[in-house]
């Protein structure tokens, strides 16, 4: 089958329930009210010529190519802007229309280069198609030079802008406005002089506010905006639908291929998470998959001071298992453990935890969700009965009030942020939703084009619980609670206990203002808005969970949602924005040491027996070690071997010195990854991993949506990751014989009630399924807790504010908080190996002008960032986005090692690290610290590789 781009219906679908019928070219068609004639025609298979219309943006009516004739009406209206009316009789092809369209095309082509054969869009160009469709054979006008011969803008690393080929249809401008919501593009000049411009005329694409989401490239009907890869290799010949492996939004993409060569990733319009949109990472930053630094052969070494020796897979499996057996015999089976990855598929994650529980014989398995959303698991399970967000992403379309706390969606969840921003801007006469942002920084969403938060509560880092309890105080004491909902759906005694607690004067906004630094009146107004503004939805991220009271904050959020009746329908809910592509899935799959898949505690005899019968081995009923506890035990000399799949704990986990001490104390560290990451500096065995393009499986996004990941190329390392884990299991003597990940999913479904109805066949039929997928909900569950909470009655939990022990003082007077930037992803292992470094080549420290002046620091200066745990250096940027007393940085670059300064403090319930609060001092610096220099030398030494010398 040859390549075809996805169907374009010309204008967006109407959401109306009312259906209308009309006749187009003699054929009847029934469509929802509000549907354009153009779309109605497309839905019945009639293609009306068009240039300025595409179904990702509203109709515009500028190109005059889609004209039609309607019986009983004068003239030739544009089909894109004319809605269908009942009984309408439309003609799309008449001699009169043909003449008009040919005339329009002639004008377009008179100012367009005629280099079709050598053009990058040859074969995939709407202008070319329409010239053919209208039968244009010659151009009578002199070729104008208004647009021809202009300089190309090559500044964006992923796409070119060739203004000579522009027909000024403004699809790119409208896509930037309506789909992405950045409003970076504009039409400059008028009439013949109209030109598309990124920002000011002096800006190029890279220097403008363009975020490189690709929406403009997608919308462009010509080669004006075109992927550099298309220019380089030509058009694709086939496409495969798959799921992005970056953040927890889980965008659906068409991987467009030539043979096994990736040409481009194009957002899929039928993707239910992204609805046809993308961001710079998913759309463009996949070059790491073929990066020269990928390790493709297994490697082993006796000591971390030795160079790596490459070996074949069989030898790697045999050596690994011999080491694990040696350690188990010498130190006992509890000296072994594993870490599953939120980057890997559900099936791979399930196998790693199965290997630990059934093969290692203990429950020492944890996952990187430990350091991000483990408090979500604890908090939502305790209050609602299950560890998941309550809504689908579509729900945001029905929000009236959006409360964002501890999340920076425009940077960390950009595609969902665009959907959220669309709702905040309002459209088609419907006013936008109101916005409350609770964040120490003025994140982009606080104020962006056509969006301004009603309330930005710039709290002191570490006081989330105090702020939320103060909001609860206002809601209860001002009688704004939805008592009818609470009586019906929640435990009334627990509510009463909670209401009494929050009503106490010590929880009032006024009393807590000195602690939170949030103006009491502003907080009261925000609480009233959330409680009374109709559908209120809370979206939160790691700024909630990565605190010593992360779990309490999640429960405080759940309390607020229950108290105001904002649960169980569209437009409301509690929505954790998951960091990595499969955090939800890794948690669902039983990656935590205390629970089996589907959140059943390991001490639950019935659940355990189910697994024991299926796996044919007894399971330990006691919880195992969490990641920080594994490191403690390693330092104590009782934890000796660790299998880490797809996580770089040395760079991503807090207090790097403690992590390295733990790793250094182990005798067998097995790293299973794409690259020699930082953890691999302390590893004895390296098992090369495969990318999401090289394997089959599923990811589960932040809305519990299980989505297929499809193999589009052969793994460069030879094996998909699940096959590597199976290889280890077989070498250990376990009877594993999976031939395809679908068989692993069948096992998951067999053993996990909330996945009972999930299978690869069902996923292929439906595209995706949101768990729970049960006999009662065979098509999944977009919204949870509709008729009742999973646990029965919703549980209010008293969340007293307990200040963190990480305190500022004379030596460390500032509070550091950390986060992500749009162009990079977590530790940067992928994005640093792409052209995304054009936007963010290094981590920067944001510091308020007052604090900067006190220290003599200017933008661009090197500064030393020191905490009680350690110190590093990086460059400063002076900005009032952060409040006085607060500094901020990202952790994407290994050379900065921001986690050298973060501490051991962690969430009281889950040990999720307190990344978001570290007391620090900033001072001028000349360059790298001793730690950075020593570490650089260690990395260089540790990454030496030698080929194995053949035995004589």
């Amino acid at each position, binding site marked *: 089958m040859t390549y075809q781009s996805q169907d374009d219906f010309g204008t967006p679908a109407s959401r109306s329930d009312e259906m209308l019928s009309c006749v187009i070219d003699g054929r009847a068609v029934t469509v929802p009210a509000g549907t354009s004639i153009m779309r109605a025609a497309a839905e019945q298979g009639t293609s009306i010529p068009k240039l300025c219309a595409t179904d990702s943006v509203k109709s515009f009516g500028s190109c005059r190519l889609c004209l039609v004739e309607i019986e009983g009406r004068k003239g030739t209206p544009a089909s894109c802007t004319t809605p269908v009316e009942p009984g309408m009789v439309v003609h799309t092809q008449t001699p009169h229309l043909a003449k008009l369209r040919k005339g329009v095309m002639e004008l377009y082509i008179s100012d367009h280069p005629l280099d079709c054969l050598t053009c990058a869009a040859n074969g995939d160009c709407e202008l070319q198609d329409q010239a053919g469709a209208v039968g244009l054979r010659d151009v009578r006008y002199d070729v104008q030079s208004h647009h021809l011969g202009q300089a190309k803008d090559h500044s964006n690393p992923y796409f070119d802008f060739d203004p000579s080929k522009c027909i000024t249809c403004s699809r790119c401008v409208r896509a930037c406005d309506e789909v992405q919501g950045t409003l970076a593009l504009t039409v400059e000049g008028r009439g013949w002089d109209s030109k598309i411009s990124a920002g000011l005329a002096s800006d190029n694409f890279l220097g403008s506010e363009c975020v490189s989401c690709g929406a403009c490239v997608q919308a462009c009907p010509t080669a004006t905006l075109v992927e550099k890869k298309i220019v380089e290799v030509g058009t694709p010949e086939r496409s495969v639908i798959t799921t992005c492996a970056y953040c927890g939004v889980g965008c659906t993409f068409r991987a467009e291929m030539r043979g096994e060569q990736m040409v481009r990733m194009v957002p899929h319009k039928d993707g239910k998470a992204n609805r046809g949109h993308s961001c710079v990472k998913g759309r463009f930053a996949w070059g790491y998959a073929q990066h020269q630094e990928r390790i493709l052969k297994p490697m082993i070494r006796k000591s971390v001071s030795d160079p790596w020796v490459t070996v074949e897979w069989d030898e790697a499996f045999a050596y690994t298992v011999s080491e694990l057996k040696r350690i188990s015999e010498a130190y006992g089976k509890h000296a072994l453990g594993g870490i599953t990855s939120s980057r890997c598929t559900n099936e791979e994650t399930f196998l790693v935890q199965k290997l630990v529980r059934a093969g290692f014989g203990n429950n020492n398995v944890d996952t990187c969700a430990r350091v991000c959303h483990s408090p979500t698991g604890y908090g939502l399970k305790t209050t609602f009965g299950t560890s998941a967000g309550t809504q689908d992403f579509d729900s945001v379309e029905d929000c009236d009030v959006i409360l964002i706390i501890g999340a920076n969606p425009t940077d960390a969840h950009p595609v969902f942020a665009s959907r959220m921003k669309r709702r905040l801007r309002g459209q088609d006469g419907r006013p936008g939703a109101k916005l409350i942002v609770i964040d120490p920084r003025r994140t982009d969403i606080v104020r962006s084009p056509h969006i301004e938060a009603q309330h930005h509560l710039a709290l002191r880092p570490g006081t989330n619980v105090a702020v939320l309890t103060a909001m609860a105080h206002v809601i209860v004491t001002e009688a704004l609670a939805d008592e009818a909902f609470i009586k019906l759906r929640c435990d009334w005694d627990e509510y009463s206990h909670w209401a009494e607690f929050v009503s106490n004067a010590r929880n009032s906004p006024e009393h807590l203002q000195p602690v939170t630094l949030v103006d009491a009146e502003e907080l009261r107004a925000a609480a009233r808005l959330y409680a009374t503004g109709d559908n209120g939805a809370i979206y939160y991220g790691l700024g909630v969970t990565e605190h010593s009271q992360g779990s309490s904050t999640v429960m405080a959020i759940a309390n607020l949602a229950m108290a105001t009746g904002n649960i169980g329908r569209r437009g409301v809910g509690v929505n954790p924005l998951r960091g990595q592509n499969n955090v939800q899935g890794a948690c669902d799959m039983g990656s935590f040491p205390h629970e089996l898949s589907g959140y059943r505690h390991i001490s639950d005899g019935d659940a355990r027996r189910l697994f024991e019968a299926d796996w044919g081995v007894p399971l330990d009923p006691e919880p195992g*070690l969490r990641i920080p506890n594994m490191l403690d035990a390693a330092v104590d000399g009782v934890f000796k071997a660790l299998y880490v799949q797809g996580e770089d704990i040395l760079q991503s986990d807090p207090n790097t010195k403690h992590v390295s001490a733990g790793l250094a104390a182990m005798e067998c560290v097995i790293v299973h990854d794409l690259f020699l990451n930082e953890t691999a500096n302390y590893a004895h065995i390296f098992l090369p991993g495969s990318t999401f393009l090289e394997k089959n499986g599923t990811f589960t996004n932040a809305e519990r949506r299980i989505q297929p990941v499809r193999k589009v190329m052969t793994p460069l390392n030879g094996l998909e990751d699940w096959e590597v884990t199976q290889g280890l299991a077989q070498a250990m003597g376990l009877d594993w014989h999976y031939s395809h990940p679908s068989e692993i999913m069948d096992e998951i479904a067999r053993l996990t009630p909330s996945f009972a109805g999930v299978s690869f066949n069902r996923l292929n039929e439906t595209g995706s399924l949101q768990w729970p997928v049960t006999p009662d909900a065979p098509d999944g569950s977009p919204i949870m807790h509709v008729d009742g909470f999973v646990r029965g009655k919703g549980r209010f939990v008293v969340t007293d504010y307990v200040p963190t022990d990480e305190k500022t003082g004379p030596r460390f007077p500032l509070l550091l908080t950390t986060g992500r930037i749009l162009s990079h992803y977590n530790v940067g292992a992928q994005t640093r190996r792409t052209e995304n470094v054009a936007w963010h080549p290094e981590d920067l420290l944001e510091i308020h002008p007052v604090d900067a002046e006190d220290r003599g620091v200017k933008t661009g200066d090197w500064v030393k960032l020191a905490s009680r745990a350690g110190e590093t250096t990086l460059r400063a940027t002076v900005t009032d986005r952060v409040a006085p007393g607060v500094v901020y940085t990202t952790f994407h670059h290994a050379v900065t090692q921001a986690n050298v300064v973060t501490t051991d403090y962690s969430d009281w319930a889950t040990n999720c690290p307190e990344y978001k609060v570290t007391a620090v001092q900033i001072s001028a610096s000349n360059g790298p610290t001793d730690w950075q220099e020593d570490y650089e030398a260690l990395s260089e030494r540790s990454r030496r590789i030698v080929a194995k010398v053949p035995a004589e």
Partner: protein
Amino acid sequence: MSTVEHIVYMANQIAANLATDKDPVRAIVNHIELFWDPRMKALIKAHGDVGLSPNAAAAIEQIAKQHGPG
């Protein structure tokens, strides 16, 4: 911080956050039973009540009674 110091700190932190529960000691016992691995439980039982807040100490005592000191 040594491992024992760390788990004493953790126990106190759990106790502080569960102080407003209707039955704080029972809540601490439940939490530790559900989330701590056997070695951590053994270490804190062996450690005794030095440095533990009253509720945390009461909870550890109860765990020791239920399962024996080891």
